[in-house]
């Protein structure tokens, strides 16, 4: 290995908070060589992002205690003055953040945001900086850069925005690029493009890349070496093939085992030939375009456009699609939180397409939904007991019986009785999702719509929740409509899989067939974009 660009030794960061001291980073050491990609991988709270921000000198918290050393060239980053750091930032060390929408200034045109950085570090005129900015936009693959240059961030798509962020980071040809979850906020096809871009740029510029991610798929696609972080420490460190093939630490093995894979085992289909519990027939959901006043019956944007789908008792139908494909709208129409504008929804043999709220109340017990955001779906001002108890109270269960039933439900989803009296902010993400599941189970449903139930969770927690859902299905004979953007998860849990795009179902097939022989080109495209499960040698430039 050549002389390292960056040499981190015994880096520690602690925060003094309301609830005492929190050791976020605990004695981390690593080197980064020119032209290599080092991935810091770990679950939320493992300290990987704090490490990156500390190296950039961007840790905002005033009560952070930083110790250790990070040598860059002849200088020391830890404890350097703000003035010294400012000269390095953007010039020698550049950073790409997770959410390109919030990371770009909403009221400044994108070319100006790029040019601003060039002006800060190079002795050029405004005009030259702008020309260089446009050249950079073109280099990161933004079509028609002259026109896009004057766009505001919200006018660009998520992938374009992340390209702008990358153009910005590259504008002064940095020696080190720190990419903090650069593709997490993006759809899978866009993610594949951005990963290919970073790979190409790395080869072109010879910069060292420090990649921060929670996704082993991204690691396998991009990294040369991996450092696995857990609770502020690096628990495993080595070349990417070694870590994947021969993980040494128990934590790494657990993480790798939890990662859903496209080549993992399929489940045994559980489809009987009973009448479907839920049948959607040509369902269409439209939203009026523009202002509503005086435009009734006018133009409508169809979020769901003629979807036909049925689910048998005990079956799991997976529904995949990228953001904006209409899958969440379809979920809401299926449980009649929304009224379809056309088509029909039949539940347990009853047409509920136009049923009124009162008519639906008795059916609510059997037709339930679990939401994506385990924080947003729980009322922050209620305890777990009240949340799970709500459907029971609404069903008219005597007060005395609600308490014991709530505890029984919480136990069923793997929570302790002590959790009953906690507020959502006192529960972890996985625990919150368990509360959401307990609420859905309260009145013994026949069908549960799961709207991205594990997307907001860490991979190890995700595996536990998937296992819980599987157990519940076996024991209670539930049918699931499982909605996700993650093709790997859907493959693992579904009997049949439906692919949605632009409000339409483009393909519906048994899981084994769909993944092995996709019929629709879009399905094939999605599958090709899924990150590989294992690192592949000589992969640079294999995708575009």
């Amino acid at each position: 290995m050549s002389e390292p660009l960056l040499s981190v030794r015994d880096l520690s960061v602690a925060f003094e908070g309301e609830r005492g001291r929190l050791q976020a980073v605990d004695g981390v050491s690593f080197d980064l060589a020119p032209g290599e990609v080092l991935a810091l991988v770990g679950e939320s709270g493992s300290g990987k992002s704090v490490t990156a921000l500390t190296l950039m000198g961007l840790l905002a918290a005033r009560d952070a205690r930083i110790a250790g050393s990070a040598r860059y060239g002849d200088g020391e980053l830890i404890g350097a003055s703000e003035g010294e750091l400012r000269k390095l930032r953007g010039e020698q060390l550049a950073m790409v953040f997770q959410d390109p929408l919030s990371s770009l200034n909403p009221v400044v045109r994108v070319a100006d945001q790029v040019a601003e950085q060039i002006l800060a570090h190079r002795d050029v005129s405004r005009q030259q900086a702008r020309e260089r900015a446009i050249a950079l936009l073109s280099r990161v693959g933004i079509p028609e850069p002259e026109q896009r240059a004057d766009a505001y961030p919200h006018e660009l798509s998520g992938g374009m925005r992340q390209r702008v962020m990358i153009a910005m980071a590259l504008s002064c040809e940095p020696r080190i690029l720190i990419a903090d979850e650069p593709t997490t906020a993006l759809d899978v096809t866009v993610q594949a493009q951005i990963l290919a871009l970073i790979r190409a740029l790395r080869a072109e510029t010879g910069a060292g890349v420090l990649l921060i991610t929670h996704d082993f798929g991204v690691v396998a696609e991009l990294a040369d070496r991996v450092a696995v972080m857990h609770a502020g420490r690096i628990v495993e460190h080595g070349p990417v093939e070694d870590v994947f093939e021969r993980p040494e630490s128990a934590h790494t093995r657990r993480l790798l085992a939890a990662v859903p894979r496209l080549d993992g085992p399929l489940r045994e289909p559980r489809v009987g030939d009973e009448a479907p519990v839920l049948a959607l027939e040509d369902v269409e959901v439209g939203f009026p375009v523009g202002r509503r006043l005086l435009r009734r019956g006018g133009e409508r944007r169809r979020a769901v456009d003629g979807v036909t789908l049925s689910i048998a008792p005990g079956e799991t139908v997976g529904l995949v699609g990228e953001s904006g494909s209409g899958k969440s709208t379809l979920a809401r129409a299926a449980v009649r939180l929304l009224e379809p504008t056309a088509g029909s929804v039949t539940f347990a043999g009853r047409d509920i397409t136009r049923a009124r709220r009162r008519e639906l109340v008795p059916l609510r017990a059997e037709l339930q939904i679990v939401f994506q955001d385990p924080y947003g779906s729980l009322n922050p001002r209620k305890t777990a007991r009240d949340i799970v108890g709500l459907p029971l109270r609404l069903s008219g269960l005597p007060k005395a019986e609600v308490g014991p039933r709530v505890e029984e439900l919480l136990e069923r989803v793997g929570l302790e009785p002590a959790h009953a009296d906690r507020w959502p902010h006192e529960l972890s993400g996985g625990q919150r999702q368990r509360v959401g599941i307990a609420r859905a189970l309260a009145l013994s449903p026949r069908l549960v719509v799961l709207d991205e139930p594990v997307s907001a969770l860490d991979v190890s927690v995700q595996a536990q929740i998937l296992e819980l859902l599987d157990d519940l299905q076996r024991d209670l004979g539930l049918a699931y409509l499982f909605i996700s953007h993650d093709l790997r998860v859907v493959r693992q849990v579904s009997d049949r899989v439906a692919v949605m795009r632009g409000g339409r179902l483009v393909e519906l097939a048994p899981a084994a067939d769909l993944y092995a022989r996709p019929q629709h080109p879009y399905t094939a495209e999605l599958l090709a974009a899924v990150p590989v499960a294992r690192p592949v040698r000589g992969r640079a430039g294999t995708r575009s």
Partner: protein
Amino acid sequence: MGQSPWRLALRRLRRDRVALVFGALFVVLVLAALAAPLWASAVADRAPDRTNETGKIEVDGRQVDVVSLDGVPIGPQWRGEYFLGADANGRDVMVRLLYGARNSLLIGLAAALLTALLATMVGLVAGYFGGWVDAVARSTLDVIWAFPVILLGVALGTALAVGGLRIGPLELEAGSMAISIVVIAVVYVPYMARPIRGEVLALREREFVEAAHAQGAGPLRTMASELLPNLTSTIVVFAPLMVANAVLLEAALSFLGVGVVPPDPSWGNMIDSGVESMITAPHLAIAPGLMLVLTVLALNVFGDGVRDAFDPRSSAAWGTRRL
């Protein structure tokens, strides 16, 4: 037992010593107002509207006119009677100040309570139902909003002061304090209802509201048990500031002669009459003014602490001032 969001906020508030001191100051002022009859009978021995234009009192062993021959009242004294001096009619300023505090604080607190009640109802219903309900509520608020606050207060105050108000069983007599309370409460409703409506709109997008609907909860239950608990911190943050605003507006209306009707004292009408004799007896304007400032300051500092503790990211409550 877990830590409720309420308890976390209260713990933060308990650590804010400045806010607590000023909160305590407000409590002291309220207690002083409640003790007004006690001071009047036990210390000053003068009723609030008892005049004394020709009497004399003993100061430093000499007999001094309470109101001199050219109409100048005595100033503050180190004694129970006429502690803050007399006014042009020989009435005890301290006693009137304390009785005025009863009026000013009662009107301020009651008006703020009424504002909060109305604004929460309007904001909740408008934000939850949306559509035409929202449109009606919003245009009503817009109309009230479009009225200049003081002008509306003065107009309503004047009109009602002459004739009183009779709407069905509700009857407000001319000259009653209830008129000031209603006027002030109505004037401030849009300032509080708008942010609450906005918050309800945001909360409606949260999945827990959809979750309640998916359990079969109807509009009433959703509003009362899902949305309302999430509005409490906003309401709590607004409360002290609304009281401060109401006390100030009451003083302004009384200053303009459409609030509390003399000889019934309020800080506003005391300042009004005090300003006229600023040259000869400045204490008549300064004393009630200081009381007013102290009260409003106590509420504002305490309110700022409450905001920091309950809802640090909200600055909406600061948009309410349009005096």
